[in-house]
């Protein structure tokens, strides 16, 4: 078994922490009095600093320390939270990412600039009318604590630095640190990288108990920690603790040389709480945290991918087994085959659930993007997100990020007007961008909608004609015209900005969505805004499919797109020649003869079938020779040679070892609709 690289684990966790910090900052920006967000941001910065130091990211720890200090002052009410302070720390989070990515890079100058901005923001936040003495809250009395803690044996191997924790405790006040070495084994027995020491710390501090807990926040779930107030009378402690604590914080070795003989002051230190004394809330809290931590297990994404591959292989093997069993008269074999089929189906479903992640994680990054774009463009922009709990396969979420960035940027830069233009148009000064997600029939629909100026169709057409994308006076449906914005190099922006207007980006959106077997729908109304919907399959790994035969070939139609199956009667077949429509409950549905489309060169079966498929409101029938039945389809990508073949979105291996191509439903429905439009146009 291989263990994950602790640095890689840290980077992953740090990225999550930074996202949490950013979310907290953006929430705080909406409500500067939100104490909960102030605490959340502080905790995030504190954890990042601590864990950064533990994993050797010293520059990150040192830089983050300043931001943490600033938020500590906010937390304590010394300075209020301001928009400038939030913006300064938001800028600092980007720098933290750089410090994580390239810890040995030359970041000093950038750090100084950002810290100068941070200091200025803190200074501006402080009330200038008050003297520092008056502004500072009354200094609370020092309180003594006895802190006993032990870390798991593998703590150091996992990157935790106990010395960092002790240093942080020492920063809280005056303290004496005693290592309990009684568990250190003999040299012939020791696992040298394990931790065998526990600590007993007496701390005299004016900080609240929560400050001590914050020191351990990153390791709290895995450690034993007892914090007990030393004495109800704080006056008793100061004399005892500082006397022996001084050498600990001293940089010069001299005082410590005298330390070996126990100082008399130690004897006068308040007696520790008896071991049997009820250790109240902290221990219970730890137990609860430990219980909670057991509820979730962090698993590297690649392991899930490996597991998915194994499940895929199992599904294929099960399919072979079913085929063998069905051709056998052995009833026991059939029973076992059915059991295996059921179990592999359940395993597949469980696996799919494991891979599903809410889009909230994806959406959260756009809050920061919109915040920055609003500053950059001088526009007022509100981002409204809905459906964050909608779950999608993790690989889909990962690949959706870039297209959505392009679309949101485009809305901010081109879609929304300036506040002056909006007011002149009778709209609120602040433009709105809606980012929503919902599930619909095996697909996730992600919509980016804005209430801006809308897409200028005349300009799109003129640009397309000028670029040679369409012929002059070409007849295009509204959707075809709007889809031109996804052509490579297409941009109607009159000005190229840092954000968009170079015509690069929207074609990337189209390519990515195509690669995800998804479709893009554009709607726009002049003066009212645009709406771009992305329909993406929920998963890219295994789907339920309907296996059909066309000629001698077998094909899979995603079951989620199948509405119904009908028999194409000879009469209807004859009647439809030249028009290819069937009448389905008083509505005409276009159909495509796959035998013709695939040029099988075979004679049609006497009783052909129509499989009606749909994408939302649009339907099309696919004429096939035989419907074989349902099939758990493990999706395999097409080879590079066949990558640009439309009509097929992938391939799968069947139980008998043969290969079936998976039909691209979106493409076929579009082809059917096009056929319908042409026929209607022809009258």
């Amino acid at each position, binding site marked *: 078994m291989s263990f994950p690289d602790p640095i890689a684990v840290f980077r992953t966790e740090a990225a999550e922490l930074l996202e949490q910090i950013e979310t907290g900052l953006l929430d705080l920006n909406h409500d500067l009095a939100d104490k909960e967000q102030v605490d959340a941001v502080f905790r995030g910065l504190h954890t990042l600093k601590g864990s950064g130091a533990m994993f050797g990211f010293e520059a990150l720890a040192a830089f983050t320390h300043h931001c943490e200090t600033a938020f500590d002052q906010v937390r304590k009410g010394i300075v209020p939270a301001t928009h400038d302070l939030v913006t300064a720390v938001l800028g600092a989070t980007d720098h933290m990412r750089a410090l994580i990515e390239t810890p040995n890079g030359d970041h000093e100058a950038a750090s100084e600039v950002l810290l100068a901005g941070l200091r200025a923001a803190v200074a501006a936040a402080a009330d200038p009318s008050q003297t520092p003495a008056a502004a500072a809250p009354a200094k609370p009395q020092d309180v003594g604590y006895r802190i006993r803690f032990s870390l798991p044996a593998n703590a*150091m*191997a996992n990157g935790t*630095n*106990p*010395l960092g924790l*002790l*240093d942080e405790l*020492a920063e809280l006040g005056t303290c*004496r*640190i*005693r*290592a309990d*070495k009684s568990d*250190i*084994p*003999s*040299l*012939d027995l*020791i696992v*040298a*990288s394990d*931790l*065998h*020491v526990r*600590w*007993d*710390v007496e701390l005299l501090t004016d900080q609240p108990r929560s400050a001590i807990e914050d020191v351990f926040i990153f390791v709290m779930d895995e450690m034993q920690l007892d914090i007990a107030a030393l004495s109800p009378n704080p006056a008793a402690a100061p004399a005892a603790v500082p006397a*022996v604590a001084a*050498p*600990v914080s*001293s*940089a010069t*070795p001299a005082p*410590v*040389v005298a*330390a*070996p*003989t*126990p100082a008399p002051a*130690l004897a006068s230190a308040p007696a520790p709480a008896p071991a049997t004394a009820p250790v109240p809330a902290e221990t219970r809290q730890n137990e609860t945290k430990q219980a909670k931590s057991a509820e979730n297990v962090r698993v590297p994404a690649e392991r899930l991918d490996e597991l998915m591959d194994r499940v895929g292989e199992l599904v294929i093997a099960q399919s072979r087994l079913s085929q063998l069993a069905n051709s056998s008269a052995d009833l026991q074999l059939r029973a076992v085959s059915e059991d295996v089929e059921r179990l592999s189906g359940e395993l597949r479903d469980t696996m799919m659930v494991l891979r599903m992640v809410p889009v909230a994680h994806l959406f959260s990054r756009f809050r920061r993007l919109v915040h920055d774009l609003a500053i950059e463009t001088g526009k007022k922009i509100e981002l409204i997100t809905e459906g964050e709990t909608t779950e999608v396969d993790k690989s889909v979420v990962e690949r959706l990020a870039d297209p959505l960035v392009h679309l949101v940027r485009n809305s901010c830069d081109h879609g929304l007007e300036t506040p002056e233009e909006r007011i002149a148009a009778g709209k609120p000064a602040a433009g709105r961008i809606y980012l929503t997600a919902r599930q619909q029939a095996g697909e996730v629909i992600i919509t980016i909608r804005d209430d801006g100026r809308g897409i200028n169709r005349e300009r799109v057409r003129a640009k397309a004609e000028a670029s040679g994308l369409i012929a002059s006076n070409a007849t295009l449906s509204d959707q075809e015209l709007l889809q031109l914005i996804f052509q490579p190099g297409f941009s109607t922006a009159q000005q190229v900005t840092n954000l968009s207007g170079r015509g690069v980006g929207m074609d990337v959106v189209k390519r990515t969505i195509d690669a995800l077997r998804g479709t893009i729908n554009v709607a726009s109304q002049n003066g009212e805004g645009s709406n771009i919907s992305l329909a993406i399959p929920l998963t890219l790994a295994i789907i339920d499919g309907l296996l059909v035969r066309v000629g001698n070939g077998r094909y899979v139609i995603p079951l989620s797109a199948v509405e119904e199956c009908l028999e194409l009667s000879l009469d209807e077949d004859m009647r439809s020649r030249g028009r290819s429509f069937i009448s389905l409950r008083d509505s005409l549905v276009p159909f495509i003869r796959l035998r013709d489309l695939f040029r099988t060169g075979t004679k049609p079966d006497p009783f052909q079938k129509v499989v009606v498929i749909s994408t939302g409101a649009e339907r099309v029938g696919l004429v096939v020779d035989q419907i074989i039945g349902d099939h758990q389809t493990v999706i395999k990508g097409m080879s590079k040679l066949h990558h640009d073949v439309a009509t097929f979105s992938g391939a799968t291996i069947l139980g008998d070892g043969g290969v079936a191509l998976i039909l691209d439903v979106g493409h076929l429905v579009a082809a059917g609709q096009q056929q319908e439009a042409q026929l209607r146009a022809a009258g």
Partner: protein
Amino acid sequence: MLSTPSASFTITLPDTLTIRSIASVRDDLLQAIQDQDTVIVQVPADAQADLSFLQLIESARIYAGTAGKRLALESPVEGRLLSLLQRAGFAEDMSADDAGFWLHQGEIQ
């Protein structure tokens, strides 16, 4: 690295005494104590050390004591190592034995 002064072995530890290399330091130290009656540990003045090193030396002291061997530092800890000892809480409540070993206080060597 082992060398043989007249009546004892001196083991010179590497410059890096952190968790990354501590396992091999442990093996060398164990071998030295098993082979010799007296082992002197020479720690480079500018050695980079962490808590695992302090643990290891304490562990070696236990082993040497049990095996009836003698283990000592060539010179008292100072500078970064002394600071490490303090930060880790090893300097607090030192017994006379500990002080003799780490700081060469009292009778040692």
